[in-house]
């Protein structure tokens, strides 16, 4: 037992510029708490008696507080992160199935820390946006908490078995949530099946990739610390890389694996749509980062051009599809795919800077995507119609929601003052050297998405009100808070990516981009542009 504790204690290291408040709290089992606390509470909620729905609000409130606590822990991890130390921190490594080389190995590098924070914020917003759930409340929050645990778990995993376990575990709760609480009873079952099909197939492919990686690397282990440095043959790396891209594409809804996003993000209730767009889809980008860029250097170099073109094609396609649709929720769903394309372009850029941008877009893109699907869902709910032909002139009737929708729109296409802008800046700066055409294609996709955003805002907010449309009702405070939380995060990320400083010293926040860079600089060194030959020029 003692060794178990010792294993879990994070190793401290010096930080040249100490963040105010850093080093105060030493927290063992931080990651396990973040991952398993929602599961534990889900089990509690599952067993609490609830005669005639008397404690429905308790389910909602307690889930909120538990998630807030998890977010608090993620924030602790974020500000305690030693930004000048290489490798994962807060590590917990215990033998799990030793005979099969499986360890319960959790750890968080800068990217994981940031994604954990993003997941926490997105889940909190999802729960706030779920305040209107009135049927089968217990089951709803139990499944929501289980899904939260799954997306957090795969981010912390340093062992491929653990990663695969959490990756696949996220599917069933979300399928049940969509099938059980979908907006349109007629279509929600089909939507759930689509999610199960696409995500299940993605899990299957990921499992194959993991097994191939482990089988060819030898060593009877699934630990990333070993597999990441296994130095496989290029051919194997390419095959594993292709499998990883397919698995990640099934979550990021890359073309042509985007069929589920249109259905799920359009049919799920607002809270679930926010969770899927903000946390579920980003896990695809995280997988690319963790398995492709960090572990398969040769494979990444070979696949980079294709991946970049895929990002561009997806962005253009989804932008055009968003221009075409008449359903506001489907429009939001297509737009939510676009930030993921910037992540993929960054991952394909294979320069340190593009990888920084890709990692940053896992946060910025998550918030922007969650905000746009959430805002579209709330608009559809409040305006009592999803038809863009009927919607119109809501700017006067729903002013707060209008601002949030405008922010969501400009956030998706990455205009200044938003976190996605910083991510785009870094990604494009880093990508043009390697993926020249892919970067231009993605920029074209952003342009089309911009046109779609403009059309959306014209139709919903600024156009003439439709006298035949049902009267829009005001937005409840909790839903506004949910969207405002996302909007505030988006702007904060865009304004102070390096964190606020007092007299040149970081204050409370070490700066998201610094935390990300601490890990990216290490893994991306292999992708650094070559030095000029001696006497060259």
């Amino acid at each position: 037992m003692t060794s178990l504790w010792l294993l879990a204690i994070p190793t401290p290291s010096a930080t040249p510029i100490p963040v105010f408040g850093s080093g105060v709290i030493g927290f063992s089992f931080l990651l396990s708490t973040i991952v398993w606390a929602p599961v534990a509470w889900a089990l509690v909620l599952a067993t609490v008696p609830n005669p005639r729905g008397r404690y429905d609000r308790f389910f909602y409130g307690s889930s909120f507080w538990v998630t807030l606590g998890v977010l608090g822990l993620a924030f602790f991890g974020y500000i305690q992160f030693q930004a000048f130390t290489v490798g994962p921190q807060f590590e917990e490594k215990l033998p799990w199935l030793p005979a099969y080389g499986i360890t319960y190995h959790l750890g968080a590098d800068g990217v994981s820390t940031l994604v954990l924070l993003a997941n926490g914020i997105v889940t909190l917003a999802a729960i706030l946006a779920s305040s209107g759930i009135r049927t089968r409340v217990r089951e709803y929050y139990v499944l929501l908490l289980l899904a939260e645990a799954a997306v957090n778990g795969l981010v912390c995993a340093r062992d491929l078995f653990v990663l695969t376990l959490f990756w696949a575990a996220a599917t069933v709760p979300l399928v049940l949530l969509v099938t059980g609480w979908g907006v349109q009873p007629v279509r929600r079952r089909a939507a759930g099946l689509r999610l199960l099909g696409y995500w299940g197939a993605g899990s299957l492919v990921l499992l194959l990739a993991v097994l191939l990686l482990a089988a060819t690397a030898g060593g009877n282990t699934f630990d990333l610390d070993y597999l990441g440095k296994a130095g496989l043959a290029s051919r194997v790396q390419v095959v594993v890389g292709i499998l990883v891209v397919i698995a990640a594409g099934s979550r990021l809804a890359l073309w042509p694996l985007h069929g589920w996003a249109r259905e799920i993000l359009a049919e799920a209730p607002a809270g679930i749509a926010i969770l899927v767009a903000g946390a579920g889809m980003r896990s695809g980008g995280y997988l690319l980062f963790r398995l492709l860029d960090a572990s398969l250097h040769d494979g990444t170099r070979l696949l980079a051009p294709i991946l970049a073109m895929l990002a561009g094609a997806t962005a253009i396609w989804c932008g055009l599809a968003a221009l075409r649709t008449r359903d506001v929720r489907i429009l939001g769903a297509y737009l939510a795919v676009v930030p993921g394309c910037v992540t993929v372009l960054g991952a394909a850029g294979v320069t340190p800077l593009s990888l920084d941008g890709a990692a940053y877009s896992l946060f910025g893109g998550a918030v922007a995507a969650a905000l746009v699907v959430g805002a579209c869902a709330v608009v559809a709910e409040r305006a009592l119609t999803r038809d863009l032909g009927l919607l119109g002139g809501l700017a006067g009737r729903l002013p707060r929601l209008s601002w949030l929708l405008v922010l969501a729109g400009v956030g998706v296409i990455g205009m200044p003052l938003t976190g996605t802008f910083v991510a785009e800046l870094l990604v494009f700066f880093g990508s043009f050297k390697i993926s020249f055409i892919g970067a231009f294609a993605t920029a074209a996709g952003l342009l089309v998405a911009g046109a779609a955003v403009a059309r959306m805002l014209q139709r919903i907010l600024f156009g003439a009100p439709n006298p035949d449309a049902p009267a829009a009702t005001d937005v409840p405070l909790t839903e506004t808070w949910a969207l405002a939380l996302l909007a505030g995060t988006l702007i904060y990320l865009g304004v102070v990516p390096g964190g606020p400083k007092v007299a040149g010293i970081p204050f409370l926040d070490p700066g998201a981009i610094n935390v990300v860079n601490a890990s990216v600089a290490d893994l991306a060194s292999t992708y650094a542009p070559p030095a000029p030959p001696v006497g060259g020029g």
Partner: protein
Amino acid sequence: MTTLVLAPEALLVATGGATLLMSGRFRARTRARVQRWGPRAVVAALLAALGLELWLGAQVGTLFAGGFAQDRFALFAKAAVLLALAAGVAAADWDLERLPGWLPAALLGGFGAMVAASSTDLFAVWAGAALGIAAAASTLGAVRPVAVAGALLMLVALCLAYLHATAGGSSLDLARSALGEAPATLPLALPLLIGLGGLAALLVLAPLGFGTTAEASPFGRGVAAGVGAAGAGVALLKVGGVLAGAATAWAPGLAAGAAGLVLLGGLGAVVAPRPRTTISLLAASQLGWVVAAVATHEQAGLGAGLFLLGSTVVAAVAATTLLRDLDGEGALAGLGAREPGRAAALVVAALSLAAVPPLGGFFGVFLVSSSLAGAGFWWALTLALLGSLLAAAGAARIAFAAFLLEEEDTRAPARAPSTRVLPSTFTGAAAVAVTLVLIGYSLFANPISGLAYQAASALLTGH
């Protein structure tokens, strides 16, 4: 080694004998007491036997001049059988079941499987498995299952006879050493494939009621699924371990058959109209993975197969028994609201049978997959994973129907007439206990899988 190691078997037989007394004529009041306390006593005895097995069975050695071997495989297999029996008896609703009903047969079948697990002779293994399977088939209360099982057992016997002739004896060690370097030839491959195929067929047919749709009692179906599968699985693993040396002759064929079984089971589970059929197909699909594990013919694979067999038989028994008389489209609607414990146990078991993480089934399937990949059976692995994906869809249907489907959503009657409004305390507690057991199988995967790994070593080396 002391003969105390036989205590669990002895206790099992004694309990089985005791259950026969329940068929005696009693006064109404006594009958009520027997009805109330009999099954609980049986569960207690089974748990005691399990405890004894885990305590005494840890020692390794032989008895009866080597005819009975207590090794890690025996320990693991017997513990799994006892746990499955306990889960089955506890999960059954004894207000609806007859007493003693199929209790003696179930315990006898369990004893057969335990015999197979400890035997060191090919024919003793066959006899033990045959006892288990026959007893299990008999609990379905129809002739067809017994006939089917018998026919398949005959096929297996033919293979064992061939082995006897080839090795010049029926001892497992003899067969192991004789086939150690046997070149893979067609005359060798065919009988081995037929024998192993027969065992594999018995394994996956057990949850399917050996091809019958006779309206057996829920407990009978559960016993058939669990004990039958345990008997066949133990024999398959044991024979597979013995034949590992000649694996090139049969492993690809078995892998192909296994992949086909998983795929068929998964496909069936997606559309099966009745929850009972879905559960059976889920179990059959997962047992296909056990067959695939045997095809890997190496320690990790066989260990994973044993681990998965343990998880599957417990889940299969529990799920089949817990379904009781709920059947037909929408029969599960509102179960989560009426009997949350039972619904939870049912759903957890179904999800485990579909290898949905993080339940025991997933651990087992992952470990088998890893071994299949190591053995180079990528094609079989891909097909089988596809089958598991489809199975997950089937399990999701069960979960949806049990917890999310309102009674008014379906045209089916809200509840089968015989289902009580509230379950008895024992039944409810048993359902919760079964859920905990199923979750515990993944929580404690570490010692369990380690034990299975050691058991596989015993299979391959004989000590």
